[in-house]
């Protein structure tokens, strides 16, 4: 088995991973930085898919206090106040630095100032963007910079487990897809930036390699996670039955620009649920759609209709060229006809508990971006996600650079992780991992999805328990190199762990708040203004509660 040593090991090449690598190197160019990523470098993950844009306070008429209030209100006051404050205060610096340091181009208005638009839940138009390809621009430019600095890049190389001894992290076991031969990487500091777990639900907008690896790795290493019940659904995922295209996001801007939602009875139904109709927040619109579908007023393929044709063909062409093209692929013409949409799993607010410098509970492990929890509370505002990953990615990079040399290196035996990962090869005729994975995602979607209740979630928890056992019986064949089935066997193991955290926490939280909606406890309960935590203790998943972290009175 190959072994490597590095000062800093960054896992993931989305906004968080790239910023961490870049800022670590720029803070101390002598450091040895290794970045490993499951997909291709700079081509994988969700930051790449960001369309809407990036929330940042730039105008003198706006203020970070206002951005903070919007973020807290969006998160139903479950956010860690210090993390939310740091997000809004660092974002202007980061946007400026991205422009100067990496050449990221954001759209400008005719006076040459950065153009800012509004997204739902904001009291000021503060979203900077690059048309509807903001993520491609950010990730492409940041990747160029990381590559140009000579970082050691291990692409298509997933982290299988963190290397832990006595509660400290000393690197990770990696599995390069190309060879199928493990690498043990010893690192003084490991930065976890592998993104979220949206595809634990069968309908999802995220990139296809995602499955919650980071949460599962951190959990197995003994870190504390929080808010895992807070799964966000985007209300308008494209319905494309049987296709991998299913669940792709149809941008929020279609509703913002005046798009209407209809049920199968041709009724513009959102008015029943919210006086703001289609302009209500993501969670509200998602539930509206869900209730219509559940009541049997859905489209033939189990969605609702989204119509923008009344805006006129010319406006649709000008405003939504990308979405027009996206709909053509499923044979629909957005200019002339409604399209079928349904809620799609989009983002996980929960994650590893961190402080404002990205420290987890485990020395040696920093966590940034969607892998971490606390920034967004019970609901994330559109535009705050990529701000989170770049702001905290940068913080993780700075922190890692400043502390890496103080930490020691340690050789931890990777053999347990490796034999667990190899176990599907020891059997023949076992279950097919991909089929199991699909079954798992259906359980999550139908029983722990947009609308939850105790009965369905208890069923889900039993089903997940059974799936957990079946994972021990999957088998794979062929060669180890680029073996998609084997990769899926490793995915489903992590995904079920994450599914269990989500389902259990959702069952414990007996109220509705933000993205978490319980039909059996349908209102928000002030006594639940606290976070649920989860960690591995003596081989068991243990749940706890904690007070929401507030700012010290003196600081404000």
């Amino acid at each position, binding site marked *: 088995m190959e072994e490597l040593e590095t000062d800093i090991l960054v896992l993931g090449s989305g906004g968080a991973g790239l910023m961490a690598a870049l800022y670590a190197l*720029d803070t101390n160019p002598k450091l040895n930085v290794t970045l490993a990523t499951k*997909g*291709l470098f*700079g*081509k*994988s*993950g969700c930051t*790449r*898919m960001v369309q809407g844009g990036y929330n940042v306070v730039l105008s003198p008429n706006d203020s970070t206090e206002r951005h903070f209030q919007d973020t807290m209100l969006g998160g139903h006051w479950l956010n860690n106040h210090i993390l939310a404050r740091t997000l809004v205060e660092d974002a202007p610096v980061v946007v*400026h*630095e991205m*422009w*100067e*340091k*990496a*050449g990221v*181009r954001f759209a*400008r208005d*005719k006076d*040459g100032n950065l153009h800012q638009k509004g997204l739902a839940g904001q009291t000021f138009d503060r979203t900077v963007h690059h048309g509807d*390809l903001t*993520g*491609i*621009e950010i990730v*492409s*430019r940041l990747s*160029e*910079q990381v*590559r*140009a600095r000579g970082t050691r890049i291990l692409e298509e190389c997933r982290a299988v487990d963190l290397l832990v001894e006595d509660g400290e992290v000393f690197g990770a076991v990696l599995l390069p897809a*190309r060879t199928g031969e493990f690498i043990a990487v010893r690192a003084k500091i490991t930065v976890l930036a592998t993104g979220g777990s949206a595809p634990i639900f069968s309908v999802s907008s995220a*990139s*296809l*390699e995602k499955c919650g690896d980071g949460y599962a790795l951190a959990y197995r290493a003994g870190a504390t996670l929080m808010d895992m019940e807070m799964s966000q659904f985007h209300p308008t995922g494209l319905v*494309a*039955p*049987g*296709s*991998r*295209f299913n669940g*792709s996001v149809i941008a929020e801007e279609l509703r913002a620009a005046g798009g209407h939602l209809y049920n199968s009875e041709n009724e513009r139904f959102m008015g029943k649920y919210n006086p703001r109709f289609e302009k209500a927040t993501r969670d509200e619109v998602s539930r509206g759609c869900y209730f219509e579908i559940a009541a049997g007023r859905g489209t033939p393929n189990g969605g609702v209709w989204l119509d923008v044709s009344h805006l006129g063909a010319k406006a649709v062409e000008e405003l939504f060229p990308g979405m027009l093209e*996206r709909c053509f*692929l*499923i*044979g629909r013409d957005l200019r002339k006809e409604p399209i079928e949409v349904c809620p799609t799993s989009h983002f996980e607010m929960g994650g590893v508990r961190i402080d404002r410098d990205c420290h987890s509970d485990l020395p040696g492990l920093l966590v940034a971006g969607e892998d971490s929890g606390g920034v967004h509370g019970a609901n994330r505002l559109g535009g705050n996600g990529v701000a989170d990953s770049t702001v905290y990615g940068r913080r993780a990079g700075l922190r890692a650079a400043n502390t890496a040399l103080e930490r020691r290196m340690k050789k931890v035996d990777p053999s347990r992780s490796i034999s667990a990962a190899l176990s599907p090869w020891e059997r023949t005729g076992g279950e*097919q991992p*991909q*089929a199991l994975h699909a079954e798992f995602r259906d359980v999550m979607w139908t029983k722990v999805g947009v609308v939850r209740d105790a009965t369905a979630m208890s069923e889900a928890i039993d089903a997940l328990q059974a799936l957990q056992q079946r994972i021990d019986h999957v088998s*794979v*064949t*062929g*060669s180890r*190199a*680029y*073996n*998609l*089935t084997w990769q899926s066997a490793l995915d489903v193991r992590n995904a079920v762990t994450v599914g269990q955290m989500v389902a259990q926490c959702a069952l414990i939280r007996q109220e509705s708040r933000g993205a978490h909606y319980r039909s059996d406890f349908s209102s928000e309960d002030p006594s639940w203004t606290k976070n649920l935590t989860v960690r591995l203790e003596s081989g068991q998943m243990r749940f706890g509660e904690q007070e929401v972290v507030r700012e010290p009175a003196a600081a404000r």
Partner: protein
Amino acid sequence: MAHARIDRFEAGRRWTQDYELELPPQSTVLDLLFEIQQRLDQTLSFRYSCRNWMCGSCGMLVNGREQLACRTRLADLDAPAVQIAPLRNLPVVKDLIVDLAPFFEKWNAVGVAFPDQSQKPIANPQKTQQTIDAHSDCITCGLCYSACDVLSHASDFLGPAALNRAYTLQLDARDVAHQKRGATIAADGGVFRCHSMGQCTNVCPKGLDPLAAIAALKRGA
């Protein structure tokens, strides 16, 4: 019933394999590959990530033409069988997966260089910025690299994508490596190798025009 012929490659062995399967009408080439891999043949390998033509991971030859698998509907192919092969001009690693390293080495060779001038923001004149924008949003899918005839016999040619990127950087007032890059562009593997066949522009899934970028560089280089 869909009929697929797929070029296979593993450990030095090359062969073609046929598959037949039922698929829903909206299926894309990416769906076809997933279905084959999950239902018929676990050993088949291919790449993907976003399934929304944003990441550029799924480039391949479909019926002889460079395409993104996630963006290509079987129904639009208008052929009795779909033939799938890896991109050209790049080493094949396994089945439909190619090694993009040469592509990115060249991308790197045209050098990105932004000074850290946090105190002094510079903006490009609007007209320049419009030209830059028109040549931006490359998803580094490598389709143009595969379609380039020059690259098939002169592997040191920088190729359309890197030169297109070079053009945007040469125009950008914020960048500080114009002179050095100018030399790279004019050197042996640079713009003057290009025969202006325009295949790059024909296949680009983002509607970019690397041919025009190369022409502009030739005039200014």
